[in-house]
């Protein structure tokens, strides 16, 4: 049984790391986002393995269902959709690589040298199950962590409003193309003005502003 768990853990770990490596190295941004989703799934599976069932479901719900979709959306809204052939890494990426590898090494070296983790011995048989249910979490949120919970709620609201404010654009500014009716009106007006022989060339914009409302009636 333990071997099975070890194998499963190894597979999940490998999957997470490979997916994460692909996220940062793939040229195509969309592929990168898809690998990110795979990575989120791997982390969710890891949570399941760690018996944090609720958290695994939340991970899927929030990360896969919301965050990654948001990322995909943002990629597609920014138009340079695939970006294939474009260099995706900055020119200083070798430096960054060295820095991150060094960081990893500094973190890992003490671990590898002396495994002085204060790990309690494996619980004997018959120990109570870990608490991971939504009911306990909910109770925690309204008792112990009430302030934090409120703060997170406010943060989410602020983030929602902030995102709307930042990304919002005036509707009038958004539409840069005239409708057919508007263009027709414009053309007619231009013809009329040239017939009355206005000496200076008529620009489109000022004329358009004087137009009667085309859509009413």
């Amino acid at each position: 049984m333990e071997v099975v768990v070890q194998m499963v853990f190894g597979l999940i770990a490998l999957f997470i790391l490979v997916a994460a490596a692909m996220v940062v190295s793939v040229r195509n941004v969309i592929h990168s986002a898809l690998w990110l989703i795979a990575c989120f799934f791997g982390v969710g599976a890891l949570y399941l393995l760690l018996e944090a069932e609720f958290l695994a479901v939340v991970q899927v719900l929030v990360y896969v269902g919301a965050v990654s979709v948001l990322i995909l959306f943002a990629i597609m809204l920014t138009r340079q959709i695939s970006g294939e052939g474009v260099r995706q890494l900055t020119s200083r990426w070798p430096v960054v690589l060295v820095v991150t590898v060094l960081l990893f090494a500094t973190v890992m070296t003490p671990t590898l040298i002396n495994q002085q983790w204060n790990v309690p011995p494996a619980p004997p048989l018959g120990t109570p199950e870990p608490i991971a249910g939504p009911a306990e979490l909910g109770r925690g949120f309204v008792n112990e962590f009430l302030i934090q919970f409120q703060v997170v709620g406010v943060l989410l609201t602020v983030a929602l409003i902030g995102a709307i404010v930042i990304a919002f654009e005036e509707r009038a500014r958004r539409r840069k193309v005239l409708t057919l009716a508007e263009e027709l009106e414009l053309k007619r007006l231009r013809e009329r003005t040239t017939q009355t022989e206005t000496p200076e060339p008529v620009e489109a914009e000022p004329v358009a502003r004087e137009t009667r409302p085309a859509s009413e009636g």
Partner: protein
Amino acid sequence: MYDMLTALINGALGWGWPEWALNLLSYILIVTIVLVVAPLQMLFFTYYERRVIARMQDRVGPNRVGPEGIWQPIADGVKMFTKEDIVPQAADRIVHFLAPCVVVAPTVLMFAVVPWGPGMVPVDLPTGLLFFFAISSISAVGLMMAGWASNNKFSLLGAMRAVAQMVSYEIPAVLSLIAIVIIVGSLSINEIIAYQAGLIISNRDLPGVPDLGLGWFVFTPVGFVAFVAFFIAALAEGERTPFDIPEADSEIVAGYMTEYSGMKFGLFYLAQYVLNFLLCAITAIIFFGGWQGPGVGWLYAQGITPANPNGNGLFNVLAGILGVFYFLLKTYIFFFVMVWLRGAFPRLRIDQLMDFGWKFLIPWTLANLFSAALWVAFTRWGPAEGMLITVGWSPVLRWLAAFVVTLAINLGVYLWLTRVYAASQAERRRAELEELSAAA
């Protein structure tokens, strides 16, 4: 289902088998059953929808293949299988191939927590409802993949619409379910169904109500509002007609499915109908008691249950049959309503859809959440929780008070919201006209 199957396998194979083998065998059996039933439901639903919508349009519908055309979906399937699978040259081949799988897999996974009858749930997760919605949101990723990988503007537009729609309507759907979860106090789907025993009034809210399996949530003001909001959101999630903007064939060919053919297209189709089935099923489960109905509870009490290991297995089977009958009946009725809505209403515009979701449904369900809290306070809380008004009231009075208060709140909020929403829509139209005339 699991307990029944274990009992059956035990009876058939004797007690000599190790437990893990029995577990494995029963799970494999359950998965097989689910994987067979899911596409069958889809096949039936395509036929059912076509027949019903035809009747609504004074037509007959497919009636050529087999008696009354019941083999029509099979003929369609054969056609689908024999079609050529075309991948556009400019498409991203791997993602294009993966997208249908990513769309179908979650819909099949969602069957894992759907109870078909008493004791007939494949996996009774304590977070079943959350699991259901978490998994359903994965298919949005598949849609995005399909839309992008096809390298077609219609596909991309369709995918963007689909995902925007699914993400925005998940919120009212989940909010309306949370109202129910507050009342039940559990995310387990079995718990939610068990709560709905009773007669018009749930016998958990009002102990002593006879159990006819009719204590559905839809009979309470909170449940009714939640039901309406959830069903509308489910229509949007399942891309049913008033909200079928992502695959609006008159605008963007077939949305994200445009560049798919053959069995890949069939898989999208399958996912869509299976999702519709599941949404109808979850509506039936959460608000209409799932397999609850007259007789099921009594029959199941006679059978082998964890509480009653000495029961008669025959009653298990009878309760299962009756429960599945009630459950499927309710599900099919909801699908009928979906088709009915399709027959009645034209497609919304994307901005109308977003406005309706964000400016009407979400406030409405939020108010309903408040009502649900009040419902719990009136029916269950005592002075220990700080509910001092109801001290000394009889359960009937408490239930009545909860009913009246929540009804008043929900009705008032509804009327107020409709007025505000209509006014905002009119204002918006006016602004658009003004803007148009300013631009012209």
